[in-house]
């Protein structure tokens, strides 16, 4: 990962012309660019942003073969522009994309202690229709492991409770091809903890993916599944 270049957001805004980038001004935060991949369905067909349900969350592995991310279609357009604080300082969340500016993506690895959706089950999920008991409402991402609540409409910021604050969920940068109604993932910003993740789950990742696979970057396309397809069970809290 260290060999990747850091590219300042202000540098790439021009390159994004033609794509709806959600929130156009800013930014001190650094985008870590990874392979640009097209989001596709289980059969390899490009997904259409306008067909995404608002009732459930999707998961795709990005930027690495073993690192899941949430793709959400929020019921309303988040304003964006949230000033957030990550490990390396302040950054601004871009907001949503897609036709209505409602499509957002975050890493699904909890920024507290790295719980994440696996094939067997997911302790962390998005509460689209059923309220979370912890949060007392819908529209939140909650990690049941230690009850951290994140708001995807505020850039994945942790909602304040009496708990020691955790950094926001790292955001996945999406690009939207309006003409084709297709989505691409291009990088990650905010505080990502992929190195910690690889270290913490060394054994598990080796078992699940075999040697050397987990840390490979996803290339070309990433398959988007419903969380209910991705993980056999979902914890509720």
């Amino acid at each position, binding site marked *: 990962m260290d060999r990747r270049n850091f590219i300042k957001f202000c540098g790439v805004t021009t390159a994004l012309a033609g794509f709806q980038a959600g929130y156009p001004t800013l930014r001190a935060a650094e985008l870590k660019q990874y392979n640009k991949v097209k989001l596709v369905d289980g059969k390899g067909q490009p997904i259409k942003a306008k067909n995404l349900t608002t009732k459930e969350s999707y998961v795709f592995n990005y930027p690495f073969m073993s690192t899941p991310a949430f793709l959400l279609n929020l019921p309303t357009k988040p304003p964006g522009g949230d000033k957030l604080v990550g490990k390396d300082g302040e950054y601004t969340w871009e907001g949503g994309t897609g036709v209505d500016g409602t499509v957002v993506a975050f890493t699904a690895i909890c920024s507290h*202690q*790295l*719980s994440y959706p696996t094939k067997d*089950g997911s*302790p962390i999920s998005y509460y689209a229709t059923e309220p979370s*008991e*912890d949060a007392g409402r819908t529209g939140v991402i909650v990690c*049941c*492991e*230690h*009850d951290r609540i994140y708001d995807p409409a505020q850039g994945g910021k942790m909602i304040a*409770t*009496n*708990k*020691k604050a955790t950094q926001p969920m790292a955001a996945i940068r999406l690009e939207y091809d309006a003409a084709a109604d297709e989505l691409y993932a291009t990088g990650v910003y905010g505080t990502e903890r992929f190195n910690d993740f690889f*270290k*913490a*789950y*060394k054994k598990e990742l080796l078992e699940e993916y075999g040697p050397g696979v987990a840390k490979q970057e996803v290339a070309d396309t990433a398959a988007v599944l419903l969380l209910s397809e991705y993980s056999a*069970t*979902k*914890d*509720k*809290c």
Partner: protein
Amino acid sequence: MDKGNNEISRRGFIKLGGAAAATLATGGLASSVAQADDKKAHMVGTGAKAYLPKAKGPRLVIVGGGTSGLTIAKYAKKEYPKFDVVLVEKRDMYSSCFSSNLWYAGVINLEFLADHSFLDAAKNNNYTYFNATCTGLDRAARKLYTNQGEIAYDYLVLAPGIGYDYSRIGVKDPETETALRTIYPAGFTMPTEHSTIKAKVQGFEGGVFMLNVPGGNYRCLPAPYERACMIAAAFKKNKVKAKVLVLDHNPDITIKAKGFHAAFNELYKDYIEYKPSMEIKSVDLEKKTIKTEFDTITFDDASIYPGVRGSKLLEQFGIMDPKNPQKEALIDTLKYNVIGDDRVYVTGDSRPHPYSKSANTSNTEGKYVAKVLAARAQGKDIEWYSPETICYSLVNASPLEGISVDATYAYDAKTKSFSFSKDTKMFEDRDASKGRGTLSWAKGMYRDLFA
């Protein structure tokens, strides 16, 4: 015999000169030879420096590689990389106390609890694991004594966990206490106790298996009730005609009462009998009975949980609060340093706080104390924040179902006391989600301590 030329080795005699003989004399064969005509007391580890690399920065020594010590070793180094961290732990093999109840029902195996290496924790997090038993402390000289030699420290954290206080169940002679520790171990400290209890449970052929819940702030409030569920689950599975008799010192289940009562009544109606307000006053080993104020109760087998106290180390080192009924540490409750000494800290289950003595508390508290140490080493200070007591209990072994509590604490500066914060929540409707949570919480804890 010439003292400077001790003769050892069975085959040829090897002559050893002064310096070499002195090194060997600290242990093993040479010392027994030396003692043949030297009847002075010889103490392992005293007068010699521990054989450790030279400190490369301020030396932070931590006694106890349990939940608290492992957390502080890792996170203090992260917070302030200049620290030269040495973790002094007497065990050479880790096995966790938390999650051990699940082993009794066969939900997990011993590997789950014990396949975690102190060496890997040290290597992964850039500190030194020193396998030794701490035996003394000289705070004036900032020196810690161990059976492997002395260690000079700049900062010292004592995280030795709890001790048992058998006097609180009316046992006041060493004969009975030793017999109880051996035959009916509590299973709240050493892994070897868990092995004994596991064998008891799996081999139990019927009758009354007694468990008790002590008074006071004992280690892990829900654990005795969880244990009752797991042992009952094992009996149910093994189809033995047996009863888990739970004698509770307290007037009711101390935490997650609704969830445990529901489990006792709905899952183990024929297997668990719960009796509140039963304070053990004495134990008769011969008759296998215990006495409470009004009753005499007979059992066939048992695991007896005496009162809990701060580790005896604190008392021996003169840093125990004599007014504390559980003999816990005399420390600043916000900064954890021994009163009047900002170089020595006490953390984990020896703390005097009314916090639940749980791994999650020790782990989150440890991260805070790591910050305190890092700040102080740089002449700064940080604000207090609460540890988190997130504690899952498995109540059903098949299918897996759990309940949980999620607590934080509030500090009242006026009364200098702590209470549960208003955000504290109980999740007492048992379900599969919290069943899985019980296991994944533990895996997360091992990861945090060792990876």
